[in-house]
């Protein structure tokens, strides 16, 4: 069963132009649907500014969709406990002036969980233990612990209210390689032990590949390809997915990937037809007029591309580990 179903989500931001011009609308997310199966991880990857964080903010109800709905465990009611957020920047997520104890107790107090000092303290110890920190951290402030430790604190805090789902927005972006590895291992371990499901937003394809069961690839407010993670990462079909994976720098490679040609379109006036057509190496005239639906192919994955039938050549992407 799906723990989250996102149905035709739309988020448009209206930006005022101060009277002289009509207001403009940023099409941050347009008609995005996905399912998150219980106990699984869905990675969302895509171009900077394509709407990933906007989806995250809608899932955790920090912002309301312009249209569409989000079902949590089949219900359309707002459940502020079931879905919790871990943001990219642990420093801005926590109050600098308050202790880590406060950060962990606050959600318990807000939701009236584990009432009483002793019960609350016990729960806080349990949370620290879950993420592999000791009690000596409790009285420190966010400024006094390293980025990796602080990211554990934000994970512990998100877990405080026993959620079913964590929405992780670039959880490992600013961590060094070995601390990143620790956090990835921790997330995998928590998922197994607590039966959690994750929506993982990341630019780090290797981490998405390591953790995700399914992946959704976004471009300019839309999902362009979605399917089994291993399948999409080893055999990407949509031209944008291919460009994205081809650009991942391999260790020891000496030259950045070639540029996508063409104008980067604006989310204020997304191009008609396929939104990628202004930069797509495969584009034909029809792509500028007609938008392909996100159709399921024979292998179960969905790709939104008019030229789907021509997108079969095996791609030489992702550098081999050896």
């Amino acid at each position, binding site marked *: 069963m799906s723990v989250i179903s996102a149905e035709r989500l739309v988020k448009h931001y209206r930006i005022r132009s101060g009277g002289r011009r009509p207001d403009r609308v940023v099409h941050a997310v347009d008609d995005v649907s996905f399912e998150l199966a219980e106990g699984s991880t869905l990675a969302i990857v895509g171009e900077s500014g394509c709407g990933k964080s906007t989806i995250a903010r809608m899932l955790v109800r920090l912002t309301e969709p312009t249209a569409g709905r989000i079902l949590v465990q089949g219900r359309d009611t707002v459940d502020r406990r079931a879905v919790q957020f871990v943001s990219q920047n642990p420093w801005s997520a926590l109050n600098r002036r308050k202790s880590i104890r406060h950060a962990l107790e606050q959600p318990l107090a807000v939701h009236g969980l584990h009432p009483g000092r002793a019960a609350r303290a016990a729960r806080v110890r349990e949370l620290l233990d879950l993420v592999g920190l000791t009690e000596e951290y409790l009285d420190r402030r966010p400024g006094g612990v390293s980025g990796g430790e602080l990211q554990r604190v934000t994970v512990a805090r998100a877990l405080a209210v026993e959620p079913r789902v964590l929405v992780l927005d670039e959880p490992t972006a600013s961590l060094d*390689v070995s601390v990143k590895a620790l956090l990835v291992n921790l997330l995998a371990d928590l998922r197994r032990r607590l039966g959690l499901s994750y929506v993982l937003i990341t630019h780090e394809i290797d981490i998405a590949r390591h953790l995700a069961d399914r992946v959704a690839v976004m471009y300019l407010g839309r999902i362009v390809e979605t399917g089994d993670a291993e399948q999409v990462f080893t055999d990407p079909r949509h031209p944008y997915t291919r460009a994205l994976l081809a650009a991942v720098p391999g260790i020891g490679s000496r030259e950045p990937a070639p540029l996508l040609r063409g104008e980067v379109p604006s989310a204020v006036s997304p191009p008609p037809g396929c939104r990628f057509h202004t930069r797509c190496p495969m584009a034909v005239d029809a792509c500028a007029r007609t938008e392909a639906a996100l159709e399921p192919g024979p292998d179960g994955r969905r790709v939104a591309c008019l030229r789907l039938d021509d997108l079969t050549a095996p791609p030489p992407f992702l550098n081999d580990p050896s």
Partner: protein
Amino acid sequence: MAAMTAAQSPAGQLLSVRDLAVVFRTRTGEVPAVREVSFDLARGEIFGLVGESGSGKSTVLTALTRMLARNARITSGRIGFDGADLLALREPAMRRLRGDRIGLIPQRPMTSLSPATSIGRQLRWHLDGLDDAGRLKELLGGVGLDALLDRLDGYPFEFSGGQLQRLLIAVAALGKQPDLLLADEPTTTLDATVQAQVLRLLLELRDRVGSAMVFVTHDLGVISQISDRIGVMYAGRLVEVAPARELFAAPRHPYTRALLEAIPVRHRRGEPLRTIPGTVTGANRLSGCPFAPRCPIALDLCREENPAPRETGLSLVRCHRAGEDL
């Protein structure tokens, strides 16, 4: 021609850092954040810096711009920049250098932008001549932000993390075209295609105007693409320096080796990633090798004595066991 060494680079020297040490005063005493850091940079050369969080990478960059936090102090060292002694310059002269010759792309874009001012105005604060529409288009287009041309009246919160980061890159790199560009994790919030565009842009800037760069990143793929030489920091020290190819082909310091083993592509899907056991906490204060508590091949000597830098050709390593065949 004099023999080149790791700390020195070929003719056209721009920057020379010698024995730099920085401490922070904190409630629990002084933290030595950077110790005995020496490296040179030629015009047009790109020096990549990797290393553990907290190892002092950002502190080195901010020391180079002399914009350290108030509780920080440079306790020793020399920074030569194009013949001038940076640490001896008066503040107005330093400010002029920061204005056009030394550019910094800071680590956290959100905290370097003013939340209540439109991004268009902030761009104009930093750069003269921006009223020329062609120039603005060129600047934004260079970092893939052509699409923001009609949104310049927007405030920072209206943009994604990666869009803000690219604005700062456009200002510091394309806008100022500095002789020395200091980039602190400039591409961490960018997807791979935009990242490749930014890397190409920086390489092109280097080729066209000869900018030298110090480029900090945790991404080993990125650092191998952008750098001529790479420095690896651990607990305030530069523990290894080597030409990019060499570092990946034959890492010599045990920390560098552990780093290369922790990356996910070296693991099967779902298998736990290799990590480095132990923690870096307290390593800054050790009298021996700072990596000794976590090092799989440490000897008693390592715990007692800090290894001196050994130079061979263009490389440098600080490890007692570096010469051995292990």
